[in-house]
């Protein structure tokens, strides 16, 4: 894990500096002189040799110090911490929506393999996966928020908004993101269930007179669980790191919005910090996914 993080740190540092663009010129505005930009670069330490900057970054990162955001003039860890809550909650709610939609439909599709319901479910899943999330977001925002007023159109509350009220702002984006991401889980659930429902032990269970409900949910689903858990883990990691478009459309101040803005502002420390957090997150989610294998299937050994 340490090696992975070091590689990510190094790639993150150099890749963001390969892109042209000057954060100092951006911050000063259109009428600032080139000399002003040079002076600000000096003040920000961006004029130092690249390997000196790299050494400073690595030694800081080892101590948990990801540097100072150029734009916010705050420690990167503080900036990321502030963005973690909306992103994690949005990802969690979206995953719940995706699971509530995808798993029952996937199971029933597999159970009614080839039926009209199955065909309709697969086609709808294909459609949901094919439509860009920004379009779904814009439509949901326009109709469900603006026209019907069921949800706030955007944002994450103001100074007088308490935590529970903030959740209201996440419902619509969670529905959008959840439905878009349910397609993959639905297809995996259906495919895994189809494999398992054809196994001998399922036939045996049925021949013993076990109810269909019990056969499907206790025997088949449990054995189809590992691929489903794998895809759910990956989906969650993708949601945390990749809800960029949805956060943008709904103006949620999460990590996705942060990283887009950081790229546009050339806020190198924030881009690096976000990449590091996402890389670590993938490692942790993979670890949790592996541990969950043990829970659903006692035969699994590492």
């Amino acid at each position: 894990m340490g090696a992975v993080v070091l590689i990510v740190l190094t790639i993150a540092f150099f890749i963001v500096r390969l892109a042209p663009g000057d954060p100092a010129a951006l911050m000063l505005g259109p009428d600032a002189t080139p000399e002003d930009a040079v002076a600000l670069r000096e003040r920000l330490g961006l004029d130092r040799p690249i390997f000196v900057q790299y050494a400073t970054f690595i030694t800081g990162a080892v101590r948990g110090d990801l540097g100072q955001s150029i734009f916010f003039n705050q420690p990167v860890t503080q900036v990321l911490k502030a963005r973690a809550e909306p992103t994690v909650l949005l990802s969690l709610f979206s995953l719940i929506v995706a699971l509530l939609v995808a798993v029952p439909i996937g199971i029933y599709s597999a159970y009614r393999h080839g039926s009209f319901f199955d065909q309709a479910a697969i086609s709808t899943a294909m459609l949901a996966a094919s439509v860009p999330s920004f379009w779904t977001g814009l439509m949901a925002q326009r109709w469900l928020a603006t026209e019907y007023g069921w949800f706030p159109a955007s944002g994450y509350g103001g100074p007088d908004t308490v935590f529970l009220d903030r959740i209201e702002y996440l419902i619509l984006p969670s529905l959008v993101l959840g439905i878009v991401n349910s397609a993959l889980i639905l297809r995996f659930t259906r495919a895994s269930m189809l494999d398992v429902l054809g196994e001998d032990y399922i036939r045996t269970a049925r021949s013993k007179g076990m109810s269909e409900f019990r056969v499907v949910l206790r025997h088949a689903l449990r054995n189809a669980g590992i691929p489903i858990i794998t895809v759910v883990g990956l989906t969650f990691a993708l949601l945390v790191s990749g809800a960029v478009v949805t956060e943008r459309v709904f103006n949620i101040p999460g990590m996705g919005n942060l990283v887009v803005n950081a790229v546009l502002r050339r806020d190198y420390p924030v881009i690096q910090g976000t990449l590091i957090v996402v890389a670590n997150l993938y490692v942790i989610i993979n670890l949790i996914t592996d541990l969950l294998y043990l829970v659903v299937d006692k035969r699994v050994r590492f």
Partner: protein
Amino acid sequence: MRSKSTFLRGSAALLLIATLSAVPAYSQKVVTVAVVGEADTFDPMVSTKDIVSQVTQHFVETLYTFDGSWNVAPLLAAEMPDISAGGTVYRIPLREGIMFHDGSMMDSGDVAASIMRWLEVASRGKGIADRVTSVEATGPLEVTITLSSPHSPLLSLLAFSNSAAVVYPEEIIGETIDEVIGTGPYRIGEHVPDLYLQLLRFDGYVSRSEPSDGHAGARKQIPDEIRFIPVADPNTRVEGLVSGQFDFADALPAESYSRIEGSDIAEPLLLQPFGWPVWAINHKAGLLTDQKVRLALQAALPIDDMLFAAFGDERFFLVDAPLFPSGWVWNNDAGVEYYNQNDPEAARALLDEAGYTGQPLRILTSRQFEFHFKMAEVARVALEDAGFTVQMDVVDWATLGQRRNDPALFDLYITHSPFLPEPALTSLWSVTARTGWGNPEKEAVLAEFTAETDLAKRRELFAELQRMNFEDVGFIKIGGFNALMGQREGLAGVPANPWPFFWNASVM
């Protein structure tokens, strides 16, 4: 029992009366404003970005400001300065009883120290620093600025909210200012980056007594709170506005006009004219250092097609040659025959005269402002038709911001600006600007223009400068364009302005 009930009712009535009498004359209201993004800094001296001006003008103030007709008017200064006969000594009387947000009182020491810092750190201040001999506190409520030679744009520079000469307490002044303390009608309440900036009414504020007029006059502090919400996506700003989430939304896409117009909740606010797209020409290096090639470029441009492609709707642009639009004091017709020629033959002849051999004309532009890119695309076709080899360098805004500082990397870049109150505020005129346009004749007239204090004479000189700009192609104004903003139905007190302000805003 009856007496107890009467007592309770009486107490309730008294409480109600006491409460009502305690309510100030203004309404209790939060005005929520969707803006294009976060301000990079709350210190407007060090930034020339419009978003910084727009936000910070609510909590920091300058000595002077602009009224609704873009005339300079006093703000923290008690009145207009007493200018010496030679135009080099400005005695500025200050208002009494001005309180900073930290509770301290403003005096001439604060003002002198702030102006000195402005001359050292602000792009616009540094531009005139070599003309300033001294800035002195010549009385408890008087500062005197002495110049080495007359410079008539000084008051406009002191009034401008961009790279602004704002006044801070002397104690906090340094190269950087960590916690901004101003004198404005609002103070910073809470700032959660990328979520909101909360500004609260400053109870110690003493408003000017004159009627409100543009940024000048009374700042009534009508809302209790002004809340700026950074919303990067323009469509999200539109949806937030028409759903009633925002009271005001800035910089909206032209396509959303009819949607806002059809809304029961919001109404469009069109600022016409807002500004001008400009092609900034590199005079320091490259192809366009040759005047004949610049004239060929100017001759080839199909301005009306470019503007139509860029804005798509005649409500949002104006094919207009003068550097300042009709109604502005600087509007004149000198040299306008050079505008919108769309004449490939003339351009080809000029290129032949210049001995042009097909070197690429490098147009540096960005899709971050889609209208820049669209007008460049239309121009490319016309320029190629006239014989130019065109190289489109389409980059993101951050890259453009970097490349335009290196004269070796571009021949022209595309940008835009609001119409500024004073021509000298536009850096493109200056030979020391990044584009470096200079010729002896223009420098002489520009020097005379910036030294002259008589408005009629200045207008004549500006007409001369405009003619020279067309004849020498210093930079190219493509036209005028309007800005679309939107506000809640019933919101009053927010005049259409490039830097909208909300201290007089009220909702019916």
